[in-house]
């Protein structure tokens, strides 16, 4: 196993596609231990043969549809009308708009790539610094995968055999706290740099903005009611919500054209391929780790630092922040879930809380250098250097890390809502 792990670590940095790395190393392990290699193909294939995982392409499709059909602009306008009148109003609208959009998209990149463009353009046009506009966009896009629906949570739920519904619910309170925290940062800079506020909108304007955004705002409602009333499985809810967003895009808003559909579906297939290649191959890699008893060893190593749960959680957090800085979130979730979630649960952390600690850490990672995907997306789109965006984002990371600390050490924050809705569980 040692050889396989060393090989994996070396190949990690050669720029080899990660799924090839995981699959190749698993084959090597099977050959060296005389295990039947057909099992590798079997487990890789069977990992995608799961009804739960089918939620993934539909959350991806929904985000793509919303971004293509101009819903994002309506969402931002709505947020801007509501909170735009306070100093730095458009900065607040950026955060609130992202939080609303997070309710219909499952990834940080969908948020930064679609809505982000609109937000940055709007903020710069009324005199905000480019750096600040980018930073608010980067930081608020972290909400995408934390406020449900969330693609990383679906993946984590499958990998950790946790309930998707519980994880979705667990994300809401931390998501709201993060939103509030980032708005404090905006307020601080708005005061310091005298950022403008919008003129007070008339009631007619508020009504128009609300009316325009209303149909789109119903999408997350359908999703939640479907899942939480138990009428639909999360996968079916994702399918219905995607259908709803297509319908409003094509028939109500009419910004989406029928001829755009093949492109949108193909884009969603590509993203599904990227994510699922990893999910499928990580399944066999997780299997290899478990037959080599790596999770148990890791648990022992972690517990050997100290018996204290607090110390263990600190160590896990530092480790995850470190990993999040260098590795893409989905990949890190898939590789580390079989190791870290059982270790945390052994120390008496509930599964829901352990999963939230993991998600928060790794999703903050999209906004930290050197491998912060959202930093790259935003700096590329806004044509502001990576260094400048990174530097401007630092103040926004403070509230994110405060919420992370709260979620880590105050279990109620992540477990209260799921327990309220689904009843107490371990």
């Amino acid at each position, binding site marked *: 196993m040692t050889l396989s792990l060393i090989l994996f670590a070396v190949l*990690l*940095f*050669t*720029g*080899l*596609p*990660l*799924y*090839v790395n995981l*699959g*190749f190393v698993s*084959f090597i392990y099977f050959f060296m231990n005389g295990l039947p290699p*057909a099992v*590798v*193909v*079997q487990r*890789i*294939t069977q990992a*995608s*043969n*799961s*009804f739960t995982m*089918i939620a993934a*392409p*539909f959350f*991806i499709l929904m985000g793509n549809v919303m971004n293509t059909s101009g819903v994002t602009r309506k969402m931002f306008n709505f947020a801007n009308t509501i909170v735009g009148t306070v100093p730095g109003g458009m900065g607040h609208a950026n955060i609130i708009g992202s939080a609303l959009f997070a309710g219909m998209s499952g*990834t940080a*990149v*969908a948020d930064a790539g679609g809505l982000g463009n609109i937000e940055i353009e709007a903020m710069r046009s009324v005199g905000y610094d480019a750096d600040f506009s980018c930073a608010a966009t980067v930081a608020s896009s972290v909400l995408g995968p934390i406020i449900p629906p969330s693609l990383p949570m679906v993946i984590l739920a499958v990998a950790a055999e946790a309930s998707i519904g519980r994880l979705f619910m667990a994300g809401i309170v931390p998501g709201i706290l993060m939103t509030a925290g980032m708005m404090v940062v905006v307020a601080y800079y708005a005061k310091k740099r005298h950022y403008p506020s919008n003129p007070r909108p008339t009631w007619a304007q508020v009504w128009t903005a609300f009316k325009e955004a209303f149909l789109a705002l119903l999408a997350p409602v359908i999703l939640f009611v479907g899942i939480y009333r138990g*009428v*639909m499985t999360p*996968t*079916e809810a994702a*399918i219905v919500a*995607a259908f709803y967003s297509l319908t409003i895009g094509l028939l109500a808003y009419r910004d989406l054209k029928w001829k755009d559909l093949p492109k949108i*579906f*193909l884009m*969603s*297939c*590509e*993203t*599904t*391929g*990227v*994510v*699922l*290649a990893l999910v*499928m191959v990580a399944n066999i890699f997780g299997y290899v780790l478990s037959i080599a008893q790596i999770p148990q060893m890791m648990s022992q190593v972690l517990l050997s630092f100290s018996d204290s749960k607090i110390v263990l959680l600190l160590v896990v957090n530092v480790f995850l922040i470190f990993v999040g800085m*260098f*590795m*893409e*979130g*989905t*990949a890190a979730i898939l590789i580390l879930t079989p190791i870290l979630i059982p270790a945390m649960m052994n120390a008496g952390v509930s599964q829901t809380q352990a999963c939230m600690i993991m998600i928060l850490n790794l999703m903050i990672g999209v906004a930290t250098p050197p*491998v912060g*995907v959202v930093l*790259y997306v935003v*700096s*590329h789109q806004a044509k502001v250097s*990576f260094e400048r965006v990174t530097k401007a984002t630092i103040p926004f990371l403070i509230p994110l890390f405060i919420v992370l600390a709260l979620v880590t050490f105050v279990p109620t924050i992540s477990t209260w809502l799921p327990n309220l809705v689904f009843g107490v569980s371990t």
Partner: protein
Amino acid sequence: MKKFLSIAKTVTEKSVDWLSIFLFCAIFILGLLQVVSRWVFNNPLTWSEESIQLMYVWICYLGWIIAERKGSHIRITFVVGKLPKKAQLWVNVFNHLLTITFSVLMVVWGISMVQRSLGTPVTMPWLHYGWIYGIAPVVNAIIILYEIVFLIEELMGKRPCFNLNDMEVEK
């Protein structure tokens, strides 16, 4: 020869793209039917969930090809991106060879899986597990072809180096 290759490339691309789109639409429609039949007609479909899953396996594997073609598979490039261009070239050649090796293993053992599962039926009597595993060797064979082309292009200096601004993006 060149013309033949370019036609073959276009045909493969178009078939993969349209098959993916078709299957995606199919699971979309079946999924909706499943909800409607249970909800509205109170008469749940017995076969839809399994069919959706089977088609989904195909979509996932076809997605491997689309991502391969567009170079969008997740990889970590910030270390290799710092190497001199010449070194990057050899690392990339190594990566292509390794990807080919992995895909060959997937083809060989995928075919073995198909042979083993030919007799294992799923709920629908006209379908068996061979169909599910069958897509694995096909997809990986196509990936091998792409990788060979990429390898040749790499050696001819026609492929770009890693650039930190083109970082692979989490979708």
